[in-house]
């Protein structure tokens, strides 16, 4: 039963944080400095997420050659201005192909 409490408490807590952000008073958000900050926060958090998903495994740094090759292929596809889904297919395809070859 206590796992159920943890599951429901996590759900409620996560929702409360999401709602808290949306409920921030407009007067606070209209300050130019706060606006600059909130404009850049997604860039910071999403890049950090990319870095951690690409190069970390739990609490240790982890260089996986196939995964990095897949991401490099994604960068190549982006430079060639490939559409979004093509970028994803190329990235996963390269990583899967290299792993099939035993990299």
């Amino acid at each position: 039963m206590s796992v159920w409490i943890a599951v429901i408490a996590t759900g409620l807590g996560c929702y409360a944080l999401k709602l808290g952000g949306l409920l921030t008073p407009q007067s606070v958000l209209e300050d130019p400095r706060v606006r600059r900050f909130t404009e850049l926060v997604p860039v910071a958090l999403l890049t950090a997420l990319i870095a951690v998903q690409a190069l970390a495994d739990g609490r240790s740094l982890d260089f996986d050659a196939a995964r990095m090759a897949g991401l490099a292929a994604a960068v190549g596809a982006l430079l060639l201005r490939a559409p979004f889904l093509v970028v994803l297919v190329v990235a996963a395809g390269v990583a899967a192909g290299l792993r099939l070859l035993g990299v």
Partner: protein
Amino acid sequence: MTAAQERSRTRPDRDHSVGAMSATGTEEVAGADESARRAAVRDGLGVGLAVGVSGLAFGAAAITAGLTVAQACVLSLLAFTGASQFALAGVIGGGGGLVSGTLGAVMLGGRNALYGMRLARTLDVRGWRRLATAHVVIDETTAVATAQRGPAAARAGFYTTAISLYLTWNATTLLGAAGAARLGDPEAIGLDVLGPAVFLALLWPRLFPARSGGVGGRPPTADTGRREVRVALAAAVIALAATPLLPPGVPVMLAAVAAVPALIRKGEKA
């Protein structure tokens, strides 16, 4: 109309969330808005499908950690934020304390509060709509919304991502949890690359506008995105440096510090 004229006509305002729509009213701009909206919907469906697949991994991880199928599904329905869900399952699987595990998982949801602050203006929702919208303020919806040109496209991208991802994430959680034993190695088909590739593709136009093919309906511009690149690099370094020192998920939250100089510096316009 030449390609160059086309580009300059549709060049987004620097502050795309509020400025780009100021010239509405002419048919030309309405046409550009419509194509931006369609591109946003395409992005949203792509993210919903691509990231939704990783619900399989969550479902399987939850069962491996000792949650029941029902608990895994309720967590996806109620929490609907991957990092927190994986964190709670990890603590339960590792035999950690439920109270500290719950607090840690909720703390990881802190970045959604920051996203909400960014999106409040763009989404501009009130009443029950705000209560419902809050539930889907997460990494993916923010990434798609902030990649769009103009608030109408941002809203279209946000809600398309939200609905498609909510449906796929919960369906794949159930599939992953119910079929955990039969699920092969997700890395074998490159699923571990999908997450970072999705966010990279969505951030790309903001980081390298001149080298972007207009993902999210944004046309390429001469704008350099240099400040964004600085913040991005600093955030990546902070997150990686903190990874060995802090529990999983916390380094990403800490990386918000990279955006703090914008809060301190005075003068410069947004």
